[in-house]
Structures are given as structure tokens and as C-alpha cells.
């Protein structure tokens, strides 16, 4: 639930505009009975949920107003109750809006619109307000100060749970030190048993909202916890609201939309209220709807020449008093038009007759009235449907297995023909047609000792349904559908079975892998961080993006399973870890492949790591209203897995590298003991001078060896790469005399010292030489960057 605060500098106009798209739904009483669904089932949990809703709300308010959020959360002991205080630096709210915002459940435009935002269903802060009122009997206390106003407003608000009407009991001006923002105080029955959960929630929120500064205080803390804003963090991109996609709505939502729309026709409604629906798509939806609502008209092959039925004669007989010639011409025209077709349905016969009649009228001065036309249609239809068994036999024979004997097919065809004989227009819905087939098949099984299994029946059904023609009826008006649940359900099914392009994905605003990493870096003191952001994907009618991050090593707890942090639309998911798709995916990955310890080869891996997953969507599929766990939607699980694997691959190469560096260090340590001893012994045995073994050591360690050689004022710095990969070296030689002829190196003078900077890439096994000259005596200090210490030997 957002949008309740007017935007900075835009005054009430925006607030009113927003208010226009808001509707009230009275479920205050419903809340009392369904606290558990909303996350208020225990006292400990209620406090967490209240904090969560209030913080989400505050963050959304700031972001919508384009303000970097600065949130203060405090929990105080207050007699038998706990008092929750949440402050933000948002744009403040108007006096008129406050009660609506905090007082009514399901109040807000969010319920219909599709946009990536925290609350999503409008059942957020108001539930917390209601809970506090129900348990403590105290009103919600709200302080708000819009920007630029000298004074702040103070309200006390209480909800009438019978009418879902909020009432303001106190309304006065007050002073407040924040220049703008909102403060809400709620007193409630609660306890602090979920203290660690609360702290985790706040920390997690800080990780996933690196652009926010958050401070948290509760009675158990000596001083408040402060979570600072990440340096480079900016406000998330504003998300764009998109209309719902036809594949992503539920029946309840559809009914509300039907009620609320200004559109008159179904086609207009579809195009107006949904994304990705144009004229053509709307027509497809309507055709599918009509099939369900009106059914299809069964179409039959016109009688063959050798059959008894004669359409022309029948039509001629049915037309009276129109003159022989006119009648004959008319009858021939009808007959020809019917025979031109492969199959013909009742409504097609109607239009053929109408056309022929219109023509006849145009040719002479005869009039073909409605009755005449009806008679002609009936006569022609009787002729067409005179013999159905042969037609049906062909259809059935086509789709049933060759093993079925003629008698069985004949039996089914003739029984089906009998069913059609009862009904004039042969117009029927899927269910009716399926009923015909089932009954005919049952009879055939019973009497002809044949079998028609489900597959055979389904095939026959498909053949007949395909042969049938959609009827050219107008769908009911939107207002009528809105009143009729069954019809609306038919429309929903029609929408779902129509192929429609996936919804646009640019309406999502992921955190971005850079900021995911920044968030982790800010809150966890680890050695390594990786993050990934997937491209947008779609489930149902809703686009979504998955992001993952991993932190490893450092101060992270090395014992026990890794910490899995779950987020949906920048909100930490606190409860029901085990029921969450994210957890399932983490468990299913073979972490040993990524060099993490995983006892038994499955389950949550162990070690000093944090794995975070963020799902951003216009509609995150939660397992319940309390929005604690992401449902197991296959498309989403796939994306979660890919995002985690992407980050895990970086972790793997880091761990590999770390291991090889470790081995290198161990080898270096060992050789650093052995080789000097060897050199000393050799000196002793041979009686020669002391040995310098740095060069040998560098070569042994596959190191990059930097050496200097000075001769007659010419300085040569050698960089010898003994490794088997290229080395990108940044070398700075600090010289106390001015260097000449520096061969492309950059030279900067500072306080009588010259910094000769040179950045060569030295291939494996190669040596690069930087040569320059100095006049007179000089001292040199070299510093080398770009090479790990383990791999560098400087001998200059």
C-alpha cells in the first residue's frame, strides 16, 4: 500500500488524483477472524508483522516522492503493551487522507494495478493499525509534516470495525523536529520473543535497500542499531504501472474489474483494462468466450447427389405465393450456396437464405418476409440434417483406431445422430457435446459390446467440435457479465486459453547486481561478494526478475548451515522458510560443485556464507496472504536457480583461486625454509661466498620477478613473468633525480621526486624491460601493483 502521501511540492492535486483510483472494501470484520492469514497470529509475530508493514510503507512513501529514505524504528515497553514507533522522512500526508490510509483495510489502487511494489495487496499498515486497536484499545497516533510547513499535524485514529470507517478522535497541530515526514505510533499486545527475527528483518531490509538509512532501537539494545546508506546507492528506478495481463488475473479480480470499468463491450473492456490486448486478441478471446457461453453450431455436410434429401425441392415447397420463377431461382440459389460448402451450420443456412432472399427481393418486386425466410431455413436445415449417420460415421472412423469394427463405429454414429435429432439448431456447448458423446458411447458399449475409452471419446469430441462452427452471437454486455459469476468465469477461461504475448517486463525495477553486492558488503564483513541479476521472465501474466547474491568468508559464521536470505519486491521474507521456493532451490543445488560443504550432497550447504535471493515481480506468487513464502512456480524456481548458480560460479572461482593461493603460500613457506638452508649448506660444502637466491626463488614460484640494473646512468627495470598466464603489471619507480628518455612511461614530479609509472602486460614466460636514464646519483624505490603478493618478487 503506497501512494498515500502527497508528493513533495505537488500539493493536494496528486493526492486527490490517487484517491480517485482507490476503492474501499470492507473486510475489517474479516480481519478479526483471519488474523493468522495476515501474520498476526501470535504476539511475537504480530510485532514483527507490524514493523514489517510500517517499514515497507515508509520506504514506499519516500521512494514515490523521490526521497532517499531515512527510517527510524523503535519499540518501547509501555505498561502491559509494547509501543511501535516508525518514522520516515517522506513527503508527509494530508489531514484528509490520513484516516483513509491508516484506517481502511484493502484500501488502495494497488489491488488492481500491476506494479512492482512492496505491499502489493493493500492489506498492510491498516492491518497493523487494526491489530493494535483490537489488542490495546488505543488509537493509532500519527504525526505528519509535509515539506515546507512550519508545523506538523497530529491525529489519533480509530476504526469502527462494523462499518470499516475510520474516525479521527484528536486533531491538533504540533511541533516535530523532522522537516518533513510521517510518524506512526501503535500500541499493541506483543512480546519480544522474536527479537532476533526482528533484528534480522531490519538488517535484511538494509541489505536489500542499500539506498535507505535505517535506525532501529528496542529495549534489549544498549544503543540503537544504525544501518547506513551504501555510498553509491540511488533511489530505485520508478516502477511503471502496467495493466494486468489476461493470463494473470483471478476470478475475483476480474469481477471487480468488470464492475469498475467504463467499457460497455467485452472487446472494449479487454483492450482497455488489460495489457497486450488489441482488437485481434480481443476477437480471439470473444470467440473462445462464445464457444463456452453459446456453444458452437454443429455443421453438416450437404446431402450428396445420391441421397434422398433434395434441398432445392424442399425450399421450393416451403416457399408459397412468390411466383414459380422467383421461387425456383431462390431455391436454386439456396441449394447451390449450401452445396458449395464443405459443411454447413444452422446459422450459416440462415445467412445463406437471407442472402438469397435479399437478392430475390432486389431482382423482382416480391417481398421475402421473416416467416417465409424462417420456413425456407427450416426446410433447408431438415434436408441438410436428413441423414447424419453417414457424416458422423466418417468423422468417428477418422479418429478412432483401425481395430474398432464397423458395428461399433456405426453404433456410435447412429446413436449420436439420434441425439442431434432432438434439437433443432444443433447448437451446443462443449459440455453438452461431450455429454452426447458420453451417452452414445456408453450405450454402444452396453449394447454392441464395444469399448470407447476416454482417449477415443476425447478424439471423437475434438473431431466434432472442430467440425462445428462458432456462432456469430454478440457476447453479453460487460455489466451483465459482472453480475453473473458463471459468465465471468467463462470469460476468464476464454482469456486463459487464448494465446497472448507475454506482458512487458520494463515495468520492473531490480536492485541491480552492483547494489545487491553493495548491500551485502555494507552489512556483512566477508572476504568475497558476488551478485547476479537475471533478465526478466514471465509466469502467468506477471513479469518477474530474480537476483541473487552470495557473501563468503570473513567474519561470517563458519559453523552450521549458511544463511539464506529471501526477499520479494525488496521486502525480507521472515517466516515459513521451509515452505519457500527459494529454500527448495538452494537445497536442490549441488553445492559441492561450487566448493561449498554440503553434508550428504543435498540440503542447505554449510560454511561461512550468506546466500540472498530477491524476486521482483508485479505479482509475487506467495503461498499465503501473510506473504512469507514464495510458491513453487516452476518458471520462477528455474530463474532462482539460474541466478544463484550465476553468483555461485563466481564464488567457485574465488574459492579455487583462494585454494591455489593458499597452496602457493604453503609451497612458498616450505621452499623459503628449504632453499636458504640448501644455499647455506652449499656455501659451507663448497667453501664459496654467500649465495643470493631471490632470483631462483622467483623462478621456482612462477613469480613475477622485478629487477633493476643501473649502468652509466642507464636504468633498466626488468619484469620477468615466470607464470603461465599474462601479468598486467603497474609499476611505479620513484626516483630522486629527473629521469630522461622514459620510453613511454608517464612521469610525475612531486616534492623533488619523480614518479615513473609504467603499465606493461607481460606474457607468460616473457620479460619486459623499461629503460630510462638519470643524470648523476639517484635513489630508487619501486612499487608494483596488479600482482598478488604471493606471486611477486621485487629485487630492485
Amino acid at each position, binding site marked *: 500500500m503506497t501512494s498515500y502521501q502527497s508528493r513533495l511540492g505537488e500539493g493536494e492535486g496528486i493526492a486527490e488524483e490517487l484517491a480517485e483510483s482507490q476503492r474501499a472494501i470492507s473486510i475489517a470484520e474479516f480481519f478479526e477472524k483471519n488474523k493468522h492469514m495476515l501474520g498476526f497470529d501470535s504476539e511475537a509475530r504480530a510485532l514483527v508483522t507490524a514493523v514489517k508493514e510500517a517499514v515497507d510503507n515508509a520506504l514506499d512513501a519516500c521512494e514515490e516522492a523521490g526521497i532517499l529514505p531515512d527510517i527510524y524504528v523503535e519499540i518501547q515497553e509501555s505498561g502491559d503493551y509494547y509501543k511501535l514507533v516508525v518514522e520516515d522522512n517522506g513527503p508527509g500526508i494530508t489531514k484528509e487522507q490520513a484516516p483513509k490510509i491508516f484506517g481502511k483495510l484493502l484500501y488502495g489502487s494497488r489491488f488492481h494495478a500491476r506494479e512492482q511494489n512492496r505491499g502489493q495487496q493493500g492489506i498492510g499498515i491498516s492491518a497493523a493499525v487494526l491489530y493494535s486497536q483490537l489488542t490495546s484499545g488505543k488509537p493509532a497516533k500519527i504525526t505528519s509534516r509535509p515539506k515546507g510547513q512550519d508545523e506538523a499535524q497530529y491525529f489519533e485514529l480509530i476504526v469502527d470495525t462494523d462499518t470499516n470507517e475510520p474516525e479521527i478522535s484528536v486533531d491538533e497541530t504540533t511541533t516535530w523536529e523532522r522537516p518533513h515526514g510521517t510518524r506512526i505510533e501503535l500500541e499493541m499486545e506483543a512480546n519480544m520473543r522474536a527479537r532476533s527475527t526482528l533484528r534480522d528483518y531490519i538488517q535484511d531490509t538494509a541489505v536489500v535497500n542499500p539506498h535507505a538509512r535505517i535506525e532501529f532501537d528496542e529495549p534489549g539494545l544498549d544503543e540503537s542499531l544504525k544501518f547506513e546508506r551504501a555510498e553509491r546507492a540511488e533511489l530505485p528506478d520508478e516502477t511503471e504501472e502496467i495493466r494486468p495481463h489476461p493470463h494473470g488475473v483471478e476470478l475475483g479480480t476480474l469481477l471487480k474489474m468488470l464492475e469498475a470499468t467504463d467499457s460497455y463491450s467485452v472487446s472494449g473492456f479487454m483492450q482497455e483494462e488489460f495489457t497486450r490486448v488489441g482488437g485481434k486478441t480481443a476477437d480471439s478471446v470473444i470467440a473462445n468466450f462464445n464457444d463456452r457461453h453459446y456453444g458452437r453450431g454443429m455443421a453438416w455436410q450437404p446431402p450428396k447427389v445420391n441421397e434422398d434429401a433434395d434441398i432445392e425441392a424442399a425450399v421450393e415447397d416451403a416457399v408459397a405465393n412468390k411466383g414459380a420463377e422467383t421461387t425456383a431461382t431462390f431455391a436454386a440459389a439456396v441449394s447451390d450456396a449450401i452445396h458449395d460448402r464443405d459443411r454447413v451450420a444452422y446459422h450459416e443456412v440462415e445467412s445463406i437464405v437471407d442472402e438469397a432472399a435479399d437478392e430475390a427481393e432486389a431482382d423482382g418486386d416480391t417481398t421475402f418476409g421473416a416467416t417465409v425466410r424462417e420456413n425456407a431455413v427450416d426446410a433447408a436445415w431438415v434436408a441438410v440434417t436428413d441423414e447424419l449417420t453417414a457424416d458422423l460415421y466418417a468423422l468417428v472412423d477418422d479418429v478412432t483406431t483401425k481395430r474398432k469394427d464397423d458395428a461399433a463405429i456405426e453404433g456410435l454414429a447412429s446413436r449420436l445422430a439420434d441425439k442431434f435429432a432432438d434439437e433443432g439448431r444443433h447448437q451446443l456447448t462443449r459440455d453438452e457435446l461431450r455429454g452426447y458423446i458420453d451417452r452414445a458411447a456408453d450405450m454402444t458399449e452396453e449394447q454392441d459390446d464395444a469399448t470407447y475409452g476416454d482417449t477415443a471419446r476425447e478424439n471423437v469430441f475434438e473431431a466434432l467440435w472442430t467440425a462445428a462452427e462458432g456462432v456469430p452471437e454478440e457476447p453479453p454486455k460487460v455489466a451483465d457479465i459482472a453480475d453473473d459469476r458463471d459468465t465471468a468465469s467463462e470469460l476468464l477461461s476464454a482469456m486463459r486459453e487464448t494465446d497472448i504475448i507475454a506482458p512487458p517486463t520494463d515495468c520492473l525495477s531490480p536492485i541491480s547486481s552492483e547494489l545487491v553486492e553493495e548491500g551485502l558488503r555494507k552489512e556483512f564483513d566477508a572476504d568475497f561478494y558476488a551478485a547476479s541479476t537475471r533478465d526478466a521472465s514471465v509466469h502467468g501474466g506477471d513479469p518477474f526478475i530474480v537476483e541473487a547474491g552470495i557473501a563468503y568468508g570473513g567474519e561470517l559464521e563458519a559453523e552450521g548451515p549458511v544463511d539464506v536470505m529471501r526477499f520479494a519486491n525488496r521486502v525480507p521474507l521472515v517466516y515459513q522458510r521451509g515452505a519457500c521456493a527459494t529454500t527448495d532451490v538452494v537445497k536442490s543445488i549441488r553445492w559441492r560443485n561450487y566448493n561449498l560443504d554440503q553434508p550428504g550432497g543435498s540440503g542447505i550447504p554449510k560454511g561461512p556464507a550468506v546466500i540472498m535471493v530477491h524476486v521482483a515481480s508485479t505479482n509475487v506468487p506467495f503461498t499465503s496472504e501473510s506473504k512469507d513464502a514464495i510458491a513453487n512456480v516452476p518458471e520462477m524456481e528455474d530463474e532462482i536457480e539460474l541466478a544463484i548458480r550465476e553468483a555461485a560460479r563466481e564464488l567457485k572461482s574465488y574459492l579455487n583461486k583462494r585454494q591455489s593461493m593458499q597452496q602457493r603460500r604453503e609451497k612458498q613457506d616450505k621452499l623459503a625454509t*628449504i632453499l636458504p638452508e*640448501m644455499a647455506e*649448506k*652449499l656455501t659451507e660444502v*663448497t667453501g664459496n661466498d654467500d*649465495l643470493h637466491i631471490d632470483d*631462483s626463488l622467483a623462478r621456482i614460484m612462477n613469480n613475477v620477478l622485478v629487477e633493476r640494473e643501473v649502468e652509466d646512468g642507464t636504468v633498466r627495470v626488468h619484469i620477468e613473468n615466470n607464470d603461465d598466464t599474462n601479468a598486467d603489471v603497474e609499476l611505479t619507480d620513484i626516483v630522486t633525480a629527473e629521469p630522461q628518455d622514459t620510453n613511454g612511461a608517464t612521469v610525475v614530479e612531486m616534492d623533488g621526486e619523480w614518479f615513473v609509472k609504467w603499465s606493461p602486460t607481460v606474457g607468460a614466460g616473457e620479460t619486459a624491460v623499461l629503460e630510462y636514464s638519470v643524470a648523476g646519483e639517484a635513489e630508487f624505490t619501486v612499487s608494483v601493483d596488479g600482482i598478488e603478493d604471493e606471486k611477486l618478487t621485487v629485487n630492485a
Partner: protein
Amino acid sequence: MSTDSDTTPDTEEAREQLIDLAADFYDQFADGEVPTMTIPTRTKSNIVFDEDEQVWVYGDRNSTRSAKTISGAEKILKAVYTIDFLSQQLEEDRSSTLRELYYLSESWDLDEAQFNTQDESNNLIEDLEIVSDVKREDFHMRPEESGAKVMGPLLLREQTNRGDREIHCQDDVGQGGYQIPNNPDTIEFLDNDAKFVLCVETGGMRDRLVENGFDDEYDALVVHLGGQPARATRRLIKRLHDELGLPVTVFTDGDPWSYRIFGSVSYGSIKSAHLSEYLATPEAQFIGIRPEDIVEYELPTDPLSDSDVNALESELEDPRFQTEFWEEQIELQLDINKKAEQQALASRGLDFVTDTYLPERLDEMGLL
């Protein structure tokens, strides 16, 4: 390789060779190079037949130990410490055993320089022999077990720490025979009535031959090999052959392991192929027990075990055994799947070996 047995380097020379080796490592360090030690690969696949000397020596394949790896650096370190020790030993004109070297390394200040097993120190001494071109005996390193025993009509003079001794290997020795010293090059042959040398694998068979007076009756120098013959034993056999012109015969059990004993007397061992020219007696002849004898004399046998079969098959691929005689015999043995010990001849009576088997075989070989 100092192949000429007459010109063994004296102590100072040996010491210098060792120090030169250390100097090579020193120079590699001084040049900023990685110290390395290259030695021939000491496996079956890297021995070749030296046509001139008629013995098997190492081929062209080399293994390099480089200080680039920890294990290579440790090997070179141990080599340097050992060189230091040996050069001091030579300077003081003392000697020590291989086992003493192994324990002595415990006293070295650096853990990495100490030997982990005696095999390691033994191998290192052999490596040093190869790269320094000096024999172990000239480093004054001796094996723990000394050479075997000789019984027969031979008069010799041995330089001992307690002065020179003249010894007749029948008249001046007990039933056990003359004990071969660690460095048989300290022996000078004075006189002999021997017609041939008979090397015997097992102690039991040697005692049988001596008890039956075989050495006396046939003027044989009976040399006890005692399993795989020590270097001193092989060296003495070679000298008996080269200097006294005595034919050498070898009498062992009839199983693949005994054929290897013959192989090391005759062709040289793989591990000491660098010394083949100094130790091997290519002219040595195999008496038996041949697989053929097992069949011919219907000797009591044991079935071949799996490892026997593997050893026989591996011998078929061993370049040293790729002769018509050995291929025939080994294939026969695989065929009959049996092996027999020397003592199995006792099944025909205690005198069968001296009265019948050996005279028949030696006659066949044209030595009687």
C-alpha cells in the same frame, strides 16, 4: 663411470667428485637458475644392452629433480646434506653403513633434510653414485649385511684394518667358509686350483655341497649368494671370472624370483645398472633348477601362485630375459604351472645332487 676396476678413485678424488656436484648446485643458484639434478630413469623400460661390455646399462631417459617442487627441493636438500656428511667422512677416512646414514640424518638440524625411510637414503646414495661417478664403496658407505661366503681351492690376501691376511678358502676357514668383505677390491688373488665357480642360492644347499665335499671333489669355488646377492658378492664373482678366468655357474631354485638372482649376477640389476660393467658377469651360466629339470627329474613341486605368474610374465617382457633359452623355459613353466626348490632334489636321496644332478648338468655345459 669408472668402469676400470684397476683405477678406483682414491679417497681425495671421491671427495672432490662429491664437492663438484655441490658446486653444480651452487652455480645454478648463483646464476639465478632453479637447482636441478638429472639422473637416468631407473626402471625396466630404461635399460639397454651394451654390446661392448655385454651387460645391461641405463638408456637415454632421464628423470629430473627440480627445486621447483617441494619434493624435488627436499631431495636436493637431502643430497646436499649427504654430500656434506660424506665429504667429512672421507676427510676423516672413516666409514659408515647405509643404516647408520639413515639414523645419522636424525641429527641434522633441519627436519626437511632428514630421511623418512631407509629406502630413501639407500636410493639417494645410489643417485649420488650415478651423478658423481663414484661408487658407494669409495664413499666408504657399506651395506649392513656384508658379502656372502666362499669355499674352495683359492688362496688370497685381504687388507684388513688389522693388517694384511693371507687366507686359503678351504684350509684356513671353518665349515662356514671365507667371508667376503664389503669392498672385495681390497682382496688380492694369490693362487688357485679351481676349475669353475658355483654360485648357490640357498644356505641349505651350500651346506649340503660342502658336507658332501663337492668343492674338493670337483675343484669348485662354492659361493653362497644368500638370496639376491650383495654387491660385494657380485663384485667378487666378476673378479673371479675376469682375473682368474674361471667359468661362473649359478644354481638356484626353480622359480621366477630365483631367475632374477641369476639375472643380477649375469646381466646386472635394474637398480644398479650404472654399475653393471663393474658388477655383472655376462658369461655366467644357469645350471638350474630349470623348468625342464622339474619335468625331467619328476621333482616334487608347488603350484605357481598369482604373483609367480605375474613375475614370470613380467620377465618375458624384461629385456634381460629375451633370449631363446629363457623364453622357452619360462613358457614351459607357465605351461606346467609348477615350481620347485633346490632341496627338492633330496627326494632322490641326499647325494643325488652331488652325485648325479650337478655332474650331469655341468657335463652338459661342458665344464667337466
